[in-house]
């Protein structure tokens, strides 16, 4: 993968964050809970029970669980898009819901499941949108903004897509451009909601490799919601396992990937092996 020579300069931490060492806590999720009801007068139809975990700079956290277990809700709570019923989410010691929109967008970037553009734009225009939190309402992009956007595209190996229209590129290419826009935000915390959805296995591995490299190079904390047990087991430093709105286990993949636990959560016959690397591998047993 081609990385530009000055790409390390493209994602500097915000002032005040430079003193952070890898032993410090970047993200602290403290006993957050949430309830959703289509009608406020009625009891919630979905609840996320108290969930806690912490992550350091450069760590990848995977949030796993079956459909409708609260993974995306947890991600929205971490991003500040939802306000928890109780508990709090701290980013570098500051509660995320207390941050104004622009300041929050300078620190937290979210890669969501794809939403179509109303009117198409070129990939570079899309990536430059990541500089929005740093601009005043009536300011134009600076040379620095353009350099950062260009390097963000290079980081995800998508420089060649720069002049392509967003509605004329493949799903995998679009995913990379969306990730580049998130990188252009220079976030301390990168959140991804099922980024491997609709990607083939090669593109999935490529994406996770990119995330691991970005996390290491820029000390960026990454939280990723996924259904891919093996990719999460291979690339995540921590796994948060949810079932029906309840956090069952938090820890390194090898400690969370226990056959009985996974079988109970996913309602399937599974086999779990620990590879030489110490990473777990899950396979479905036939006839289950």
């Amino acid at each position, binding site marked *: 993968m081609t990385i530009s020579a000055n790409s390390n300069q493209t994602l500097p931490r915000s002032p005040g964050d430079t003193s952070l060492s890898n032993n410090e806590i970047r993200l602290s999720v403290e006993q957050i809970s949430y309830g959703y009801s289509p009608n406020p007068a009625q009891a919630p139809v979905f609840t996320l029970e108290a969930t806690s975990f912490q992550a350091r700079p450069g760590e990848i956290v995977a949030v796993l669980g079956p459909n409708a277990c609260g993974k995306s809700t947890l991600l929205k709570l971490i991003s500040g898009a939802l306000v928890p019923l109780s508990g709090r989410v701290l980013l570098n010691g500051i509660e995320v819901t207390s941050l104004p929109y622009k300041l929050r967008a300078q620190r937290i970037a979210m890669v969501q499941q794809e939403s179509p553009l*109303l009117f198409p734009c070129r990939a570079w225009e899309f990536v430059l*949108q990541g500089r929005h939190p740093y601009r005043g*309402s009536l300011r134009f992009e600076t040379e620095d903004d353009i350099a950062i956007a260009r390097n963000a595209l290079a980081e995800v190996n998508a420089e060649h897509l720069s002049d392509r229209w967003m509605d004329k590129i493949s799903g995998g290419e679009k995913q990379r451009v969306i990730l580049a826009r998130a990188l252009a935000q220079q976030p301390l915390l990168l959140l991804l909601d099922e980024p491997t959805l609709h990607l083939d296995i090669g593109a999935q591995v490529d994406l996770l490799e990119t995330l691991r490299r970005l996390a290491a190079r820029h000390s960026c904390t990454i939280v990723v919601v996924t259904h891919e047990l093996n990719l999460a087991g291979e690339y995540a430093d921590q796994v948060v396992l949810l079932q029906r709105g309840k956090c069952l286990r938090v820890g390194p993949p090898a400690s969370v990937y226990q056959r009985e636990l996974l079988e109970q959560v996913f309602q399937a016959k599974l086999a779990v092996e620990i590879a030489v690397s110490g990473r777990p591998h899950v396979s479905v047993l036939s006839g289950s």
Partner: protein
Amino acid sequence: MRALTLQRLLLRCGILAAILFVVVVIALKLGAVPVSLYGLARDLISVILGQRSALSSDYGMIVIDIRLPRILLGIIVGASLSVAGTGFQALLRNPLADPYVLGVSGGAAVGAILAILLGPHLALAPAVAVLLTPVGAFLGASGTIAAVYLLGQRQGEIDNGTLLLAGIITASFFSAIIIFLMTTQSSNLRGMSYWLMGDLSLSPPRSLYVMLVAGFFLASGIIYTTASDLNLLLSGEKEAMHLGVDVRRVRLVVYISASILTGLAVSVSGSIGYVGLLVPHVMRLIFGSDHRTLLPTAAIGGAIAVVIADTLARIVVAPAELPVGAMTALAGAPLFLYLLRKTTA
């Protein structure tokens, strides 16, 4: 990667402004009474220098007192409708949205008609009486804005789908009221075409021009402060929020400002169709979908479109006239079909 710069923006606006100037000169020249370019230039300079007494002839009076105010009105109305249309399309995330989609024009028309009917019963000074109809229209538009905004909420939050439905139903309701009033009170009212097709032939009082121009620059300026935010809204409200946009504030600001622009335009010209729908699309095809360019170019493009349409409306069946809305619909409907085929091809 060629990011937008102030120079590039000014160049684009400058080119369109030059086209608008040429269109205005041609529009001044054309009409039932022919005017030479030389005579036109001489009369305009006389007016600019404040020497109205030096106007060359009655033809000069026709140009300065009749055609010029009408063209200026067309410029303001066209620009207002196009900026409002651009704002509504981004806000509602709907490429088919136009300034009238939320029923503002219907509310304005009902307000104006009620003002016309009530006017003779109110003992108002002539200077105030001439403002009654546009003020009625504006109040009707404001009332509609508030009503649709309240109807468009779900669980205390504005919901685009609900807002759109509330607007369409309100527009339909007001159309029925207009037809009812036109049928029962026809002797007191302007022609049906004024409210249903739009018309620039009845110039408002001069004092209203200042309000129109001030209202246009104020509301358009406010919308322009959200131009970067509107770019991000094209990806969806959640995406925009994660990129630092205060979506609730932007929605409110654009909704009110675009509605005010529509109310102002309808109060002096009725409902001129297709301008607010198509001009933003044409400008988007030429200059891209960046609202920092789109809003000002759509404003000038809308002005050009309405001045051309109104000039054609004046001359194609001269000495009779068509309502300008008939011309915009004649040209707009085929253009709309062309754009539809082009974008779906």
